[in-house]
């Protein structure tokens, strides 16, 4: 297994057979997120980002800086579930949603500004974001979660 320092800018993109509106709803409402985002309930509005576990404990501390449904969402990211990551600098997550001509939608997640957050960078790389995005794709395309 090759080990290396995780990148400070990470890009993940995936084609999903769903409309931009469906994808927007799936990333901003808790009824969807708890089925693919490690069981967390995420609520996003123009001035709110809330991510809690089943018991209501905050998992991510974030504030929304760009909110353009159903195309673009930008928010900060500070993981609270791990004390080492919680002690790092906040990073930034950008969601870009682009409808394609063939009826699919390209979803791109850019997690950047990770220079001051090496533990976070490591945690979201590898299978981190890929697991979340594969789960989101499976949920939207089949109506069933990837795992469980």
């Amino acid at each position: 297994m090759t080990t290396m320092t995780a990148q400070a800018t990470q890009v993940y993109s995936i084609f999903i057979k769903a409309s931009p509106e469906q994808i927007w709803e799936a990333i901003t409402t808790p009824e969807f997120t708890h089925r693919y985002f490690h069981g967390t309930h995420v609520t996003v509005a123009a001035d709110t980002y809330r991510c809690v576990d089943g018991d209501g404990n905050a998992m991510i501390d974030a504030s929304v800086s760009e909110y353009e449904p159903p195309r673009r969402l930008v928010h900060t990211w500070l993981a609270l579930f791990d004390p080492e990551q919680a002690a790092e600098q906040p990073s930034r997550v950008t969601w870009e949603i682009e409808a394609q001509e063939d009826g699919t939608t390209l979803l791109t997640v850019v997690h950047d500004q990770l220079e001051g957050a090496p533990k976070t960078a490591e945690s979201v790389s590898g299978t981190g974001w890929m697991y979340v995005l594969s789960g989101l794709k499976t949920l939207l395309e089949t109506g069933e979660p990837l795992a469980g």
Partner: protein
Amino acid sequence: MDDDQVFKALADPTRRHLLDRLFERDGRTLTELESELEMTRFGVMKHLRVLEDAGLVVPRRQGREKLHHLNPVPIRLIHDRWIDKYAEHRVAALADLKQELEEETA
């Protein structure tokens, strides 16, 4: 982005080399990538284009520069669809064989 495009993109040593360079250090310009390959700028651009079409490389503008980022998601999906399935089967077959042989000697 379909599997055919991903397999086609991976079926070339130069393109695999480009992916390895991006894996080492992501977010590079064409000029940086070109400097590591004995190939014309046009040749590198052509290969990057195939990788972009397959979704394996995502170009992003940063200021005046165009940076190329590795997108590992298509490889993951190929892995889930094509590698996992057969590797698991192989492992299961070996487990069955072991069990059968052990039963015979018991």
